[in-house]
């Protein structure tokens, strides 16, 4: 990305005339400053203006949105305990005592024990780490792969676009869970990587499609033509002009998708093809606990509840982000 010129901010305290919106809108909704230096014109009073980028406007909207605040706090909490689970639990999730299997809540073990005698509370906490890791890494992978491919297809059009669209069509046709069962059953590793790889493999078309559409829309704006008329190279147009303006829908979809990827990992682990022991995953716990739901519901409830809350938090975040970015999208 070309370096941003560090224009110094002058503390201009010059008189500022009243703001107004230009032609086209019957209502001057734009606040802030209009900066007319007409010779000899009187300059009235108006709100003092500071540079206000569209991103900072969006952030301002976001900050005031209660949905964002709540989901943000939940996610922050989840991220913290993913990195430092020892903050709220001092036990080892793999340290299980069969003798205590299925026992209910006890001092020091607020959620009781699961079928293997492992502490449900600790396993739930460590499960967060898995979910967050899988969710974040998958989303990053999907966004990069889908964003780049979709963006290039939208930018260049023509044959690139035709080929990419057909490829995405193929991938869209693959049922996700079924594909997971087939693909992951041959994998023996019990780490998160196969699952992440699979999610990225099947998830990128969705982002690619969004990115492609968004780039095509951005491309039609005059300022892209203006850059071309100046002699801008393709990389410059893509990075400086198109990407910053096309990225907002991608961000929104990716944030919401994060929630669904967490849920997908849990599903695959539940089915036995996702993560496998000794990895700790809510899906695994839910699967193991489902047969005991009558007798010892606590084994199922806590991991399932944690999963639900986590997914909900990310989806709410995505909603709030969409609301903040939407009105600014042009």
């Amino acid at each position, binding site marked *: 990305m070309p370096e941003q010129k560090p224009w110094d901010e002058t503390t201009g305290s010059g008189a500022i005339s*009243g*703001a*107004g*919106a230009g032609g086209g809108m*019957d*209502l*001057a*909704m*734009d606040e802030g400053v209009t900066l007319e230096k007409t010779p000899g014109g009187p300059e*009235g009073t108006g709100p003092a203006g500071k540079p206000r980028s569209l991103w900072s406007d969006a952030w301002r909207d976001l900050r005031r949105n209660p949905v964002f605040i709540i989901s943000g706090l939940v996610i922050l909490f989840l991220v913290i305990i993913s990195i430092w689970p020892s903050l709220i639990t001092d036990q080892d999730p793999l340290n299980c005592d069969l003798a205590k299997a299925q026992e209910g809540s006890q001092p020091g073990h607020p959620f009781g024990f699961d079928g293997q005698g492992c502490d449900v509370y600790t396993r739930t906490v460590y499960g967060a780490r898995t979910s967050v890791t899988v969710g974040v890494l998958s989303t990053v992978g999907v966004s990069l792969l889908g964003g780049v491919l979709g963006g290039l297809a939208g930018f260049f059009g023509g044959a690139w676009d035709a080929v990419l669209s057909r490829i995405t069509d193929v991938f869209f046709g693959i049922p996700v869970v079924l594909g997971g069962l087939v693909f992951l059953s041959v994998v023996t590793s019990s780490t998160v990587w196969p699952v992440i790889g699979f999610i990225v493999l099947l998830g990128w078309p969705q982002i690619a499609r969004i990115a492609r559409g968004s780039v095509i829309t951005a491309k039609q704006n005059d300022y892209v033509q203006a850059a071309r008329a100046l002699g801008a190279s393709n990389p410059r147009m893509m990075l400086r002009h198109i990407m910053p303006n096309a990225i907002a829908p991608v961000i929104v979809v990716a944030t919401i998708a994060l929630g669904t990827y967490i849920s997908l990992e849990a599903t695959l682990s539940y089915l036995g093809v996702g993560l496998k022991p000794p990895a700790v995953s809510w899906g695994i716990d839910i699967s193991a606990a489902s047969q005991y739901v009558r007798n010892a519901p606590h084994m199922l409830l806590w991991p399932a509840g944690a999963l639900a809350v986590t997914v909900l938090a990310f989806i709410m975040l995505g909603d709030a982000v969409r609301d903040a970015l939407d009105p600014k999208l042009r």
Partner: protein
Amino acid sequence: MLLEVRDLHVEFHTRDGVAKAVNGVNYSVAEGETLAVLGESGSGKSVTAQAIMGILDTPPGKISGGEILFQGRDLLKLKPEERRRVRGQEMAMIFQDALSSLNPVLSVGEQLGEMFVVHRGMSRGDAKAKAIELMDRVRIPAARERVGNFPHQFSGGMRQRIMIAMALALEPDLIIADEPTTALDVTVQAQVMELLAELQRELNMGLILITHDLGVVADVADKIAVMYAGRIVETSPVHDIYEAPAHPYTKGLLRSIPRLDQKGRELYAIKGLPPNLLHIPPGCAFHPRCPMAQAVCRTDVPPLYTVDEERRSACHFWKETLDAR
């Protein structure tokens, strides 16, 4: 008096404050008369029209005062169903962009016919015949063959005529046309305006023409109301205002438009910009841009002074403005 707007106030509540879009507007239209409402962006002309029609977005908009008397009844006091009935049958509106005002998935005949099916209880067959009749009236060629066509199959000028046909279908008493020809080419514009004028004469309707184009106004209007920052700053019969404007804003506008029949060296330009409706300047809203502004203009809001029997001007110095002709 067909329509009388009295002291209308409309506000918009935004997260940055209250924008006063309409600040005490008064105007009236008689039967068979054409009132042109002239103003630029932010003047409040469209908002006033929307308030009259009752199609204002009520959050964030809000009618905070005034009366809208239509054939003697205050529309603002009517029940919603009653208001809707008036809107459908007695008043109609024509918008700027016909393509987005017409439903793209319904044929033109269906959209026109719907008016009759819904409001007059006609059968589909009768309604279709009526639709063809309307299309003929607005001079769409080969109406019988084209009644099944969709909006995108018509040119811009034709679409605008279809909009006019829809507006006229139930023979309303009042038509509000919000920038009906701004998006059209000049030759088409001429055709459409001529059609509108003719139909108005035929049906003896009142017409409110909202525009920023002083040329169009000169052709069709009987009287003009000039709006600025949500207020009426001048009203006058059309001939007088071009020869001798009584408000500096009107004067500035007239001066600043380039004329086809003249080539000047430099255009007169009103300095400055229209005000932010969140922070309207105190006193006369125009004073920061006015070449004649004095101390009193900064503090006292000018009322609509009487210039003569039919002319009003909201300027403390209307006399000087008039005389400086």
